[in-house]
């Protein structure tokens, strides 16, 4: 931090200090919220004000996680869900962008497909669940298909919108310099849609977890969704809560892996 050696004026130093104080206050309250929430939860279940059988408690969740970790199954469940989500996320994002490019390329195809895209977008994909199981069988495959279905249509629609919202004069400019359609695509349309692509990535992180958990609810032998389902059927709310906590950690981690891209590209 070289620039710290510059002598700032008093008012500027004051301003910087204010910014810093504000940041500390925010972090302080963020800690208060989580500690308060967990503390209250622990207290209420410990004193019996809420039934720990139905509501579990932070200490029981930690215990459950340790226990699951010791029996070894925990990592299998986490890995299964993570693997399904990442694969579904990648397939849906890549396929969605490719289809969007295709639809951008051919205006006629776009117009033909438009009503079907709208219907597919409003259709709750979970309704297709039983069919997916019949076609690809239950397990990891079905979950990935569900995950892809949930992310795919929204990716196509968002990316297509980004592509066709490109300023027409910019396209004319490219044409006046004799650009062919490939050049317009690679030198203008795609870089122009980069910030929309990053938004799509962020949305898809969330959506792919929805897909994975839904897929695992429907039919699975492993995964956090399976564990949640299993826990609730066995009336072991500790397992349910522990799975949700782990899910939060994984989904949050994946989101934070995408966000550096946003910082890097969204400003330009």
């Amino acid at each position, binding site marked *: 931090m070289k620039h710290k050696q510059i002598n700032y004026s008093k008012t500027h130093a004051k301003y910087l200090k204010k910014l810093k104080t504000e940041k500390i206050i925010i972090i302080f309250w963020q800690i208060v919220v989580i500690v308060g929430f967990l503390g209250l939860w622990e207290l209420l279940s410990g004193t019996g004000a809420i039934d720990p059988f139905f509501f579990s408690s932070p200490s029981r969740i930690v215990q459950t996680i340790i226990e699951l970790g010791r029996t070894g199954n925990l990592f299998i469940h986490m890995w299964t869900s993570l693997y399904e989500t990442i694969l579904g996320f990648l397939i849906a994002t890549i396929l969605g962008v490719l289809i969007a490019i295709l639809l951008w390329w051919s205006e006629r195809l776009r117009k033909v497909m438009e009503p079907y895209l709208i219907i597919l977008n409003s259709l709750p994909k979970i309704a297709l669940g039983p069919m997916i199981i019949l076609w690809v069988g239950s397990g990891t495959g079905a979950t990935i298909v569900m995950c892809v279905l949930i992310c795919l249509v929204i990716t196509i629609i968002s990316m297509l919108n980004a592509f066709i919202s490109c300023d027409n*004069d910019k396209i004319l*400019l490219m044409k*006046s*310099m*004799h650009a062919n359609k490939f*050049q317009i695509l690679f*030198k*203008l349309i795609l870089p*122009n849609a980069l910030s929309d692509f990053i938004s799509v990535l962020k949305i898809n992180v969330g959506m792919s977890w929805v897909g994975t958990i839904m897929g695992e609810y429907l039919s699975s032998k492993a995964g956090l969704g399976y564990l949640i389902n299993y826990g609730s059927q066995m009336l072991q709310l500790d397992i349910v809560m522990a799975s949700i906590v782990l899910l939060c950690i994984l989904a949050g981690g994946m989101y934070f892996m995408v966000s550096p891209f946003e910082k890097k590209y969204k400003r*330009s």
Partner: protein
Amino acid sequence: MESFLQYKNLSYFYQTKESEIHALNNINFVVKQKDFASIVGPSGCGKTTMLSLTAGLLQPTDGEILLNNKKIEKNDSRIGYMFQRDHLFEWRTIWQNIILGLEIQKKHKDEKTLCFAEELLKKYDLYNFKNKKPRQLSGGMRQRVALIRTLVLNPTLLLLDEPFSALDFQTRLKVCDDVYQIIKSEEKTALLVTHDISEALSMSDQIIILSSRPASVKKELKINFQGKTPLEKREDKDFGKYFELIWRNLS
């Protein structure tokens, strides 16, 4: 008189869902080489259509446009187009923006054209900004970059579609002057479309006034200020006289 750019009985109709619109009707005029010509006319009279036809982006319904006695083709490489806004690509540096056209035409590895591009940058005080992004430049500088981006392709005819309309008044006068100097020193023929009479007057050797739709040539004016710059012209005693003449023909 040697005619460089020639409009011969040019007519244009364009189609909409509701009807067919007669935009241009039998337009005839010529522009000399290295002259700066402006087209003025009431709004919606088809000025931009004229430019699109001249750029070869549209094909005339009737008549023809000749450049150096050769018909203008679709995407004619002899023509450079400057738009209302600079349309610099934000994800490219100034240098990358300038060589965009060269990249498209696969000339970006040709030493001579790259040298020419660098020369232009140096000549017009943009060399130090070579590696900056467009958003770090002022509106006037951006418009100069846009002009150089067009010039590196070495067009013989430059088309300008109200290239200053997005700038504030102060910048506009300055950029007007800059662009004029650049075009004159690079010895380009230019055709400007504008609704701003004083802008047309301060830049042009020749002004073509169009009537309202279907547009035809209402009046042609030769302007002579004995080689003054646009800013100087604005202060000339004849400026007001010309202005009134054009204004009366427009309304």
